[in-house]
């Protein structure tokens, strides 16, 4: 058994895997130890060993697949990748297909990684940051897979010339308006900026969220399928969710109106007849709140 220790990056793994393939090491002869594996007596550094000679041909598509799947955090993170690569190089092309036992696991991981990138795009919440030297917007996020580096470019397209950063418990990204900097260990300063207390602007969003919800359609299961519990605590609307649910369940109200508006004094509008002249605005509303009158 060869235990190969490396830094947990795909680039280093790729070099090491290449070397192992050229040495003809079968998947069951290898143990991959990334930075999270506890050190052991028999570790061999993956780097620095003499380069065996030989040629390997691996399609760029397969490399892309492996690189994406490598973002998956979980057991056998690296050994599955090596097994797929090994079988593919041996001519077993089905190793990468979703119908194959290894391929199926590979695709499950690819899907989980894509889904997590999507979660990042959906559920990151930026907050304007007024601290000198800090970027315009900051966000804290806790992704389940290592998608931050590859999926963050999306926000550079959204936010134009604004600078921003996303800090996580592990890594972090910083966009200064022109370049994206990724740190595998998120600097403490970035983490501090990202964990500022909530600003006033979040109240507007919460008001919107509460009102756009239709209590007559309460459906907790579907909601949690799409918005897993682990994200709630980082969303400004998070604390509101259980509250809205229990109010709706209590059934105080069977129609769709938001509870905060229920029973409030309203305003009926007079029927408009052909040829009606313009009427003075009613006393209860004024300015831009007033209705337009028929021409």
């Amino acid at each position: 058994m060869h235990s190969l220790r490396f830094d947990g990056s795909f680039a280093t793994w790729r070099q090491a895997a290449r070397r192992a393939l050229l040495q003809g090491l079968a998947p069951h002869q290898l143990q991959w130890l990334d930075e999270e594996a506890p050190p052991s007596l028999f570790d061999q550094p993956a780097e620095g060993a003499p380069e065996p000679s030989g040629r390997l041909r691996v399609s760029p598509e397969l490399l892309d697949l492996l690189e994406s799947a490598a973002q998956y955090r979980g057991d056998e993170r690296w050994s599955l990748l090596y097994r797929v690569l090994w079988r593919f190089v041996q001519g077993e092309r089905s190793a990468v297909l979703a119908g194959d036992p290894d391929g199926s696991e590979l695709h499950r991981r690819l899907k989980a990684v894509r889904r997590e990138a999507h979660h990042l795009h959906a559920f990151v919440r930026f907050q304007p940051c007024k601290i000198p030297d800090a970027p315009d917007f900051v966000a804290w996020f806790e992704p389940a897979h290592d998608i931050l580096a590859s999926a963050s470019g999306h926000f550079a397209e959204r936010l134009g010339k604004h600078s921003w950063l996303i800090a996580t418990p592990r890594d972090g990204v910083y966009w200064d308006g022109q370049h994206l900097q990724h740190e595998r260990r998120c600097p403490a300063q970035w983490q501090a900026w990202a964990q500022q207390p909530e600003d006033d602007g979040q109240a507007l969003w919460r008001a919107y969220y509460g009102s756009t919800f239709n209590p007559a359609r309460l459906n907790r299961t579907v909601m949690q399928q799409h918005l897993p519990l682990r994200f709630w605590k980082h969303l400004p609307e998070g604390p509101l969710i259980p509250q809205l649910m229990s109010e709706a369940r209590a059934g105080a109200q069977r129609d769709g109106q938001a509870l905060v508006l229920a029973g409030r004094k309203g305003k009926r509008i007079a029927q408009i007849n052909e040829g009606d002249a313009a009427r003075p605005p009613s006393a209860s509303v004024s300015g831009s709140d007033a209705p337009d009158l028929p021409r």
Partner: protein
Amino acid sequence: MQLIEKLTILADAAKYDASCASSGAPKRSSKGKDGIGSTNGMGICHSYTPDGRCVALLKILLTNFCLYDCQYCINRRSSDVPRARFTPEEVVTLTLDFYKRNCISGLFLSSGIIRSADYTMEQLIRVAKLLRQEHQFRGYIHLKTIPDAAPELIAEAGLYADRLSVNIELPTETSLVRLAPEKNVGSIHQAMHSIHLGEREAKEERRAPRFAPAGQSTQMIVGADATDDSTILHNAQSLYHDYRLRRVYYSAFSPIPQSPKTVPFEAPPLLREHRLYQADFLMRGYGFSATELLAGPGNLALDIDPKLAWALANRAQFPVDLNRADESLIARVPGIGVLSARRLGALRRERRIRYEDLTRLRCVLEKAKPFIVTQDYRPPRAEHESVVLRQQLRDTPAQMALW
């Protein structure tokens, strides 16, 4: 009135419109540019409300003052609800602020009818124009089109909006006359036609002005009147055909406060709405026709999904040999989707399909089993009556309670 107060009222007033998607826009990016906003064709749901619905856009009315008296609508003029009106600048501020916080991917703006159809439409356009021109906003914009608005205004709206929509509201003209007396089927279709023409011109003539690249959609309210699913699906099918709509949204009628006697005050028919969406998806993505799904008058089954219902009614087409059949026929097998059908196609070019391949592709085997043949499997229950199969395959009450 405070901005937060207006927002509370005007989001509540807008929530009954289900069409909140942010998909279909061309690729746009603000990287290194002034302004903000991007689109990439795919929609993003930035949150979900406890009703399980996606929050993709800031969905609000410009105002809920309305001169019309549509019986199913909380904003009808005879309704005793708090009223408010945003200025265009307020809508712009809210959109940009929420957008930067990554709470939304854009704006879906509609309005009660104030003064006249044209005036109302002009107000909506003004917001979109401000966002696009003054603020160089490149995010998603969906504008509701007021049916009686002049064609020039619709053309102008198409310059700024990604999507335009005119609501068909009710599935039949009789119901529209009864429940929305000021609305008119003719002008709704006329507006859809104008949008369709605008889209076609923009596509076919290179120098034609930009026009709503994410196309048009509509919404039909289900359960406010007595129309059956068959009429609804046939109606949707002609809308897809006549105006190339991107989507028909079905909205289970939700009871409204101080409900008039003309509409039901009952829990919204959510399971029925769900079955209609499934049937609609089969028409858009799988090549099913409305007649295949519901040959005569009546409603879709609630206990089984429409694809299974079709398979049970067409046993002569089954079982399907996964090693031989066309991918399009494989996609018609209950429990096997278009993607799995394509993957089976790729796999069988390498080797023969076996039963356990379906497990790995995560097909719904319970449903697929009676309808397929693989190299090592034939359905033992092929001779079983459809009635018995239906008993075994129906969604359990627990699953149905989801809806």
